[in-house]
């Protein structure tokens, strides 16, 4: 059972929120010393429900792929070829230019080494960053920010007076996911257009002031802390007015929940609110039944997914150079289709890393093959890359985390073994 995450969400020593939207210049200059690129932002997308990686990044040269998936396989003619062995699902077309431009790196046969086929356990393991260990109450991304705070160079530089924006860790959604939960304050918001109390206007409403006083003086530590974070964020949002940042000309986000989330993350990034880590999730991947092939259920989800990600990337324009986006899902799906035109819970999966500085245009990871004796437990794609190695490499190069043991306790991540995809 997960403990109350909120109990961790009080203000940390370094987490005194600033009053204006002048976020990370301090952090930036400090990070420059630590080997990380300055001003980098990390966007994490969780595909909840276990996306069928074998039909997203299709190993179209594998004979067994076609024999195991008689009704849902993507025909060779219709995959979007990547490297002569793998090809993208045709609904992922919007992402192909990003691959061609060398910004999209794909890692196949990756994921969590834990064997759980429970969505909920596997999501928790993946988000906590401690596969197989229950009861971890904070998430890897929060710990990555903690590690950034603990970074010796950073502490020396600002002598404990570093200011972090209230938007430093942000979730687009109605709650703070486990990935972002922990000591570093994180905020969640659904819709930045309605993120104000008692009406939007140039000045706070009187009711908002009353609530602010009420929560500020409350002895209820959870609501006291959340109230502080809330009013801080509301103020910053009012000052920065991110709604003024409309999508770049020619960029159209899909009119979907996910498209809307990505659009709002772009607005918040453009508004320079000091976002360092942003998280959102997208559901609808649990395709047990009639998942379809070139068309159908999964194809529709992928169409929305890839169009949203591609729109986000084009929308960011030049500033995408400082942004890295990572996708993950709790596990893959069975290599064979099941009896009802779908796939059941499997093991390894594909991840995307999209970044201005990514060494994209390549499918990374050792391919384990799909022969019967190559499958995990005779049914799933085997795992050859621990997802923590991928994330470890990404956060080292973005957030400037120099202590990966804090972020992923219990596993020794050797930077020399990284895939060198960033």
């Amino acid at each position: 059972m997960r403990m109350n995450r909120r109990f961790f969400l009080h203000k940390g020593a370094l987490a005194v929120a600033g009053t204006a939207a002048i976020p990370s210049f301090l952090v930036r200059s400090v990070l420059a010393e630590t080997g990380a690129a300055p001003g980098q932002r990390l966007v994490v997308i969780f595909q909840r429900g276990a996306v069928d990686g074998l039909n997203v990044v299709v190993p179209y040269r594998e004979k067994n792929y076609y024999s195991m998936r008689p009704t849902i396989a993507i025909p060779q003619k219709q995959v979007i070829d990547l490297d002569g062995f793998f090809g993208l699902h045709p609904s992922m077309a919007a992402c192909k230019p990003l691959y061609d431009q060398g910004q999209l790196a794909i890692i196949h046969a990756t994921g969590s080494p834990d064997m759980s086929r429970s969505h909920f356990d596997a999501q928790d393991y993946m988000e906590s960053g401690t596969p197989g260990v229950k009861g971890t109450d904070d998430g890897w991304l929060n710990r990555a920010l903690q590690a950034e705070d603990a970074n010796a160079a950073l502490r020396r530089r600002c002598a404990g007076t570093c200011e972090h924006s209230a938007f430093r860790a942000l979730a687009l959604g109605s709650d703070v996911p486990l990935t972002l939960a922990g000591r570093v304050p994180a905020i969640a918001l659904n819709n930045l257009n309605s993120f104000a109390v008692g009406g939007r206007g140039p000045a706070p409403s009187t009711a908002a002031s009353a609530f602010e006083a009420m929560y500020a003086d409350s002895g209820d530590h959870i609501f006291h802390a959340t109230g502080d974070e809330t009013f801080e964020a509301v103020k910053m949002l009012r000052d920065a007015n991110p709604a003024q940042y409309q999508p770049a000309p020619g960029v159209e986000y899909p009119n979907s929940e996910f498209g809307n989330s990505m659009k709002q993350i772009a607005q918040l990034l453009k508004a320079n609110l000091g976002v360092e880590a942003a998280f959102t999730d997208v559901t609808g991947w649990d395709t047990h039944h009639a998942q379809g092939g070139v068309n159908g259920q999964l194809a529709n989800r992928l169409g929305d997914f890839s169009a949203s990600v591609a729109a986000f990337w084009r929308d960011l324009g030049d500033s995408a150079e400082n942004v890295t986006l990572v996708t993950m899902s709790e596990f893959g799906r069975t290599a064979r289709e099941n009896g009802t035109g779908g796939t059941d819970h499997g093991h390894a999966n594909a991840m995307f890393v999209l970044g201005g500085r990514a060494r994209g245009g390549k499918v990374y990871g050792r391919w384990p093959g799909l022969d019967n004796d190559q499958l995990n437990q005779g049914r799933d794609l085997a795992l050859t890359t621990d997802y923590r190695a991928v994330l470890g490499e990404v956060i080292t190069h973005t957030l400037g985390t120099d202590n990966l043991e804090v972020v992923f306790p219990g596993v020794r991540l050797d930077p020399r073994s990284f895939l060198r995809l960033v």
Partner: protein
Amino acid sequence: MESLKSALALVLCGTLCTPAPFGYGQEPAASTQPPRHAHRPAYQSAQLQGNERILQALNRFTFGPRPGDVDDVRAIGLDAWFEKQLHPTTIDETDLNARLAQYPAMQWSVADLIYRIPSNGMIRQAIDGRMQVPARGTLHAVYENQMYRLQERKTAQQEKKQAEAQTSAQAPAAKNAEPISSAAILNQLDQLDAPTADNAPAQKAAAQPMPDSQSSDHQSAAQGTDPLTDRQTDNQALFSEIAALPPVRRVIRLQSMQPAEFDAFVKSLRPAQRKALDDGLSPDLREAVADLENPQRLLVEELMAQRLTRDIYSNAQLQEVMTDFWLNHFNIYLRKNDEMPYYLVSYERNVIRPLALGKFEDLLEAVAHSPAMLLYLDNAASIGPDSPAAERAKRNAWRNPKNKAPEGINENYARELMELHTVGVNGGYTQADIIQAARVLTGWTVDQPQRGGGFVFNPNRHEPGSKTVLGKKIKQNGEREGEELLHLLAARPATAQFLSRELAIRFVSDDPPQSLVDRMARTYMSSGGDISAVLRTLFHSPELWAASDYRAKVKTPIEFVVSAARASNADVENYQPLENALRQMGMPLYGCIPPVGYKWDAADWVSTGSLVDRMNFALNLAANRLPGITVKWSPYAQQPPAQSVGMLANPVSEVDDPTPESEEARLAPLIVPGGISEATRAAALQQFQAQIAQDTSFVRPVSAARPQNRAKAATVLERQDQVLAGLLIGSPEFQRR
């Protein structure tokens, strides 16, 4: 440790006890009457007493106290109140039933619902000619309108540019050529059993020809020269004409419109006009109009409205809390497919609510047989790989490889049955157990789901042979195998632990003491899985009354929204603002996609975004800014205008000249009976005074001296109260229960 204890209990039972009912482990302890003063010194010093004890019960076993509830419970005694809550059929629900009478369709069978309030699937069948469109009456028009809408959507997708031209060409053809007589329509209306007071005169009126409306139809159709403005003017005139008709004639007029005309008409209506169309309609007629407009929306709106009606107004609150609990435990997602909203009506009404306080095994059985669950977790499509159906498919595939239909096991339900419904993820099962359980359940499917059919066991799809689940051999026995499996799972000690913990988290604390969970689990085992007995054990456990847990649970969005409506004695006619609030706060009704359901602990529900939403909801609810929801705060506003004059003639002393302090002292205990902190009080008072300062600039404070000032003064006071009440509902104290 626990398994050791259970094993010991079982051994003891083998020698000492009478055989356990239903094969559950039996405990020698008299579980139905657990010791009131268990040996637990740690709790004795910090047990809740008096009003706090009553409030704890109301906060945990209801959707929040209404003004006056504490006194009512004190009057009958807390223990007696709880026993009554465990027996919902003994509770008077006159008020609730009057409100539920607004939704007559919610009593229909699924097959009736899906036929009379057709799903998109039904409409597609009608378009493809796979089902006969009802020949006449309201229902005929409902189908025609929907077929038109669906085809319109298709056309619009196919050719955006030519859509306009096709609309005018298609519209006359889409309507059935056969003219419908008013008498036939009336017959159909009668079948909808709509006995309203004004039926008789209306029928007479309707029997006469309706020349003006007919001709205006033709006019608007003929003068297609354009312009939007013309059409808008037409529709406005049409609205005035239709709104003026008596109820039955109004419905007849609406159902006799051509689909295209009707579509344009309803789209042209402003919300207030749409509402005016319903004025004076009986519930059946109101449903008929909504059916003509958008059947799927009608269905979902009523499903949600009846649920929230019960949550807010039912006196059998524990039954509703437990219904909410089990709907979440056995979660089903509303939008899984076109038919799911229809099946959810009966799932909640016939499966969950009547069994919410009964035996868990009965509930588990009913859920397993419910088309809603069979479809949601895909068991309806699961086929035994060696079953006759699969063999036939293989032969067909061999003859014609292109014909290959997928045939086989789907393990989705079998997995969640163990992981989420019974033993829990640590319940000691393996992947092999899941596959075996899935084989056991092959053949459990739904008869004609697109037509709203029921459960059916299809022996052709059932996997032959015996299976072994959790070490227990289940012999080949058709449908009975599944029942054996469900019994096996319901009787596992792991299930007792899993359910007891979940209940303790819902009712006691986010991290409930293991001692409490163990005690509840023992009752579960000894009572044959009796949910009421487990709740009784919980109620009589000192852990529930620990002062440290007083108001310690953070309200989930539904608990917050419903408790706010209850605390403010809101009169809700329109539930949409509440549904929207729940969606915004991340807890849409029937809207949890994964089978795990929503979490009960605070972690998931306290965030910056949801706090903003809660504050705004509080302010809007208190200030009557949610359409269709009325709250009244000042004592003057409590009465209808005619009576308020009399009341003001004899004013009660403390409302005579209310001060901020007196209003705060009056409202705070009504809204937050558990009390508020000094900080909350100070902030609320300050704001209240600011509102007064604003108001006094144009109206003098309340003075009883001049009667003509009183109405104005009452309005001002009400506005001030609204601010105060909004702040109280949005306060930190109100976020907990």
